[in-house]
């Protein structure tokens, strides 16, 4: 008889950060787990955006198969921006079988799946009622004033308010996890997402011991570690524990507006400068970008004012432009992927044509709103592709793992 499976996700935590906190004794429970289990760096998806990563983690597929290429998408035949969610996922997640699941707070999985067990969607969940299944779980979570996500808007007003909200959200998550742990299940998955929010706004506070919020930054991970400890304590010996982050995080040196580069080179034309939106893309546009560095040819057969038929020349032109893009003498782009090469599967026809991976510290932005190529904003941290982490207590990890490999650890053979 095989044991149960417990999956703990910590959104956006880099390998070095969690290893560091384990080594310095801030995350003693995690440190203890490292002594026995297998721990490795992991590659995020391309691009390294949370909803793409989690879609790959739960399906074991690449974006060319599951169809989610970014946080935003343009709807077929329009320049209308959409935010794809669970309903856009074209591959089955691992919970689509006859086991009993507790799926708590997985990002991009809204609205809730009606599964045998409990399903609580993670961010972004606009309608709380549709984020929870079944009704009994909704009632309970309403009673404890559960929050799907920390209110990041607060960080724009005050970090203090934001942190209070962050800890409150974590406390409710802990309470919910304890509650649902007591139910009957075969697989229990819990994702912490406040970590990603915290790092986006305050990763500087981690590296700077003098920072006003350095202590509270560490405190958050101490509390996460405590919850991990409580869970591990309740697990049986034969149970499997899989832990992971979905991407890493590093400090931002500069934001880079990809569309501003395209505009500068006459490849993107947006008309009204006071109403810069995708829907105002004008004739003469050869390409545009969506977050973070996904570039799409303005194809004739795909967009209302599309005009590109054979885009090879434009692609080569853009590759040259981005290879030459520098800031303070430093190259901005580390690697330029071609969609057709990095993705495979029946959704590849919807993929971006080029995907840019930046050098350290450069945060690629796909918004059409900004005029200048280089800019700064409130955020201090940005996603990274090559330093997520993966942990498993009882199985060797694949060599140089990616988010697509996680599912193989979650699905246990019956005779294991």
């Amino acid at each position: 008889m095989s044991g149960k499976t417990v999956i703990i996700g910590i959104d956006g935590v880099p390998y070095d950060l969690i290893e560091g906190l384990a080594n310095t004794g801030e995350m003693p429970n995690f440190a203890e787990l490292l002594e026995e289990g297998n721990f490795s760096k992991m590659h995020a998806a391309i691009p390294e955006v949370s909803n793409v990563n989690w879609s790959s983690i739960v399906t074991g597929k690449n974006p060319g198969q599951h169809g989610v290429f970014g946080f935003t998408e343009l709807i077929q035949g329009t320049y209308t921006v959409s935010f794809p969610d669970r309903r856009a996922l074209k591959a089955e997640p691992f919970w689509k079988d006859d086991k009993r699941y507790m799926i708590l707070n997985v990002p991009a999985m809204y609205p809730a799946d009606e599964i045998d067990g409990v399903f609580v969607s993670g961010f972004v969940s606009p309608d709380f009622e549709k984020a929870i299944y079944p009704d009994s779980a909704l009632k309970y979570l309403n009673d404890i004033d559960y929050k799907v996500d920390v209110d990041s808007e607060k960080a724009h007003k005050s970090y203090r308010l934001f942190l209070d909200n962050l800890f409150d959200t974590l406390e409710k998550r802990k309470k919910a996890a304890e509650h649902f742990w007591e139910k009957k299940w075969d697989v229990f998955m819990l994702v912490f997402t406040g970590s990603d929010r915290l790092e986006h706004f305050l990763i500087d506070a981690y590296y700077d011991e003098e920072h006003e919020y350095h202590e509270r930054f560490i405190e958050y991970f101490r509390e996460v570690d405590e919850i991990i400890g409580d869970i591990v304590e309740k697990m049986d010996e034969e149970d499997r524990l899989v832990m992971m982050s979905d991407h890493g995080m590093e400090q931002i040196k500069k934001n880079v507006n990809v569309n501003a580069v395209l505009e500068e080179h006459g490849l993107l034309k947006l008309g009204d400068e006071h109403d810069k939106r995708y829907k105002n893309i004008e004739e003469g546009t050869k390409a545009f970008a969506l977050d973070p560095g996904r570039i799409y040819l303005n194809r004739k057969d795909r967009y209302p004012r599309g005009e590109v038929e054979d885009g090879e020349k434009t692609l080569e032109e853009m590759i040259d432009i981005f290879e030459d893009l520098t800031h303070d003498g430093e190259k901005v782009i580390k690697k330029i992927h071609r969609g057709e090469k990095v993705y495979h599967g029946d959704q590849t026809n919807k993929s971006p044509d080029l995907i840019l991976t930046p050098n350290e510290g450069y945060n690629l932005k796909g918004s059409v709103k900004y005029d200048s190529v280089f800019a700064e904003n409130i955020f201090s941290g940005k996603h990274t592709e090559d330093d997520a982490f993966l942990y498993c207590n009882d199985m060797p990890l694949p060599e140089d793992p990616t988010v697509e490999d996680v599912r193989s650890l979650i699905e246990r053979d019956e005779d294991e």
Partner: protein
Amino acid sequence: MSEEPHNAERTCWNCPAAKFKGNVDFRGCGQSRRIVPKGEDKQLMIECKRRPELGHFEPSITFEQCPEWIMGEHGYMLEDMRVMILGMDGYLGWTLALKLANQGFQVSGIDNYTRRDCVMEKGSHTLVPIPNMTRRLEAATEELGVTLNFRRMDLGNRKKLREFIEEVKPESIVHYAEIPCAPYSMVDAEHAIEVQRNNVLATLGLLHIMRDVVPMTSLLKLGTMGEYGSPLTGRPLFEGLFPNDAVLQWDDREWSMGGEMTPRDPHSFYHVSKVQDTYNIYEGCKYWWLRSYDIMQGIIYGVHTEEVSQHPDLRTRLDYDEWFGTVVNRFVSQAIEDIPLTVYGEGEQIRGMIALEDAMECMVRLITSPPEPGQYDVVNQVSGLHKIKDVADTVARVGNERYDLDVEIQRLENPRVEAEEHPMEVVSRKLPQEHGFEPSVPVEKEVERMFELLSQDHIKQRIKEKKHVIMPKTRWSGEKKESGVLEVYQPGEKEKGDYEGKLDTE
């Protein structure tokens, strides 16, 4: 197609499949709190009931771009759009039901046969015979191959209505379920109260049901040009709301009137009920983000649409009695029965009018071009302005010249309280300019169609049977007394006069 369809550039904002609820906190007009996704581009996002796989997105897909909106006879139509007609057994309700169903809409409807009862109560009957609803539905399937989801129900029965609306989830509701008649509301206290109760209270209940069950559904409510009256100052009858550049001047000061309701000056207790509806609907849009076109319809007349003319059992009713017979319909019936056409008072009254077929086309265009959430809009649905005595002339002339009749016209003491001579300027720009409507049925053409149908022997016989219900006996004063004859004259005898009113469509 030479021109772009009228609704090609409408977007998700107008579409009933767009789900704003849950994405926008509709707390009240002007106070909505936009719930924005956590992302860089902060803007309002919605979901689509028909395309849930899109997740959340900007409400900016145009009808032209959206695969759910397909090309129909009058522009784009939402595929299998569900339209509920309240008052489906009536003159307009039945005609519209057939037209919509024939064009591929999923049509449902209710009626409690009030119109049949009211007409019977007054001792009259529909001039064009119509079968009962069971046979009507059967004929619709046999002749047009369509099915209509009908339930017998009083609009005032909120429990049943709610249940039906919850079941059908209409994407557009056409409200034709009011008692439609000025003289009927002026018979006595009982009739006035019944008209206002039926019209005002049932509509108020409907608004509450829509708020709770189908807040995204547009309400196309039949009002009447009679809500405005005929102001003696000659100020234009705008489409319900003052245009942006309207200014009020007083005491050396000025105020913009743009967007405010224009004055109403109803001229019967029935018209008052319509004005009360106007305010109730306006408030519903304001409080709950409902959306509505309030349709100020001119005097309707005629017997023809492609669908009702296909089979005798598909015909719509036609009333000609003093209470429910509208003026053109009454004149043609009188002409056939050799009764001099009854013009009230001077006959200089100018009215906006529209033929049945044109009115139905307007409705299809409005159904397929819904207002935005919270938008209360008004359209003046008229295709021409006509003096009553000129209409009498036209009917008499057609009867005499083409049907070898000898039609005379009689002026009667006016049983109503109304201006018999007045200026009239009607603004009707939205239907032609925003909804691509061009009238295609001149009065003369429809009058000919009416003569054609009503001259059939079995129908002529029906006029004879009920001749006594034609002459007006219901006076606004409360007296029950037949109007005296002021004058009898031949068509063409009267001068037309210089003033003809102004219909402002551009």
